[in-house]
């Protein structure tokens, strides 16, 4: 049974103090799972609109000769806010984290890097991660 995406998303938010919002959305900006703190000031509707435009820009990049076909993450920093977008599951989904500038950017990125494999596994229809022994060998 895959893990519940909402549970993973709220666990992510608990790992870093001060986060406003963690949202998992697909490439059509449909929300798959989300968590918001009581202090959140970014409306999910506004985020959806932004992500639609972001997605169309991404589609252009992938075809552009600049060659940035595969992003690990994109960070928007405003005076009072960080917004980090990390593509996952081969670009079919994105995790978006919004946080005030008081939250260290490195913590947000590390948290995303560590949780993306679990989120990918929790997507409906994805194969479970192979089990490994202490030497890193896959156990059938």
């Amino acid at each position: 049974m895959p893990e519940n995406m909402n549970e993973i998303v709220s666990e992510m938010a608990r790992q870093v103090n001060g986060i406003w919002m963690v949202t998992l959305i697909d490439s059509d900006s449909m929300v798959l799972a989300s968590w918001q703190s009581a202090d959140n000031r970014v409306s999910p509707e506004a985020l959806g609109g932004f992500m639609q435009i972001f997605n169309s820009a991404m589609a252009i990049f992938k075809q552009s000769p600049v060659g940035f076909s595969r992003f690990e993450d994109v960070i928007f920093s405003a005076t009072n806010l960080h917004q980090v977008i990390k593509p996952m599951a081969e670009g079919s989904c994105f995790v978006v984290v919004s946080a005030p500038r008081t939250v260290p950017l490195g913590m947000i990125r590390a948290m995303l890097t560590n949780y993306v494999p679990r989120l990918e596994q929790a997507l409906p229809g994805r194969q479970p991660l192979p089990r490994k022994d202490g030497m890193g060998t896959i156990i059938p």
Partner: protein
Amino acid sequence: MAETKMKDVLSEMAGQLSGAWVIIVADNDGMLLSSWSSPENKLPPEMLGGFIQTINSTIDAFKQSTGGFGHLEDVIFSTGFSYLLIRPIAEGQCFMVVNAPKKVPLGMIRMVATNYTPSLEQSLPGREPMPKHNAMGIVVH
């Protein structure tokens, strides 16, 4: 000459960012104002200018979705092998773009971009030089 001055600032920036591939200043239509590139650079600066035009609509959408959170400071794209930092300068009239391999620390890229923004803004044609301050922070005429 504004162009020479801007090139000097970009070269000085590049000197602080050992390993950087390319640094450009482009206007918000993606037209190149000035650029510096290392011998290892494989990306034509004009192409990065075009990239600005593509990202501009996303930046506008970000500003609308996060209204009230202050102004946009920078956008950073991380790929498997490089960082691309885009920073609006001169009240969004232009953009500074830095492309560097991942061996260059991201914190250094951001710090250098922050520290050189005022010099680049001053080197734009028609911009007033920054006021000089004395030790007490008072403007000296």
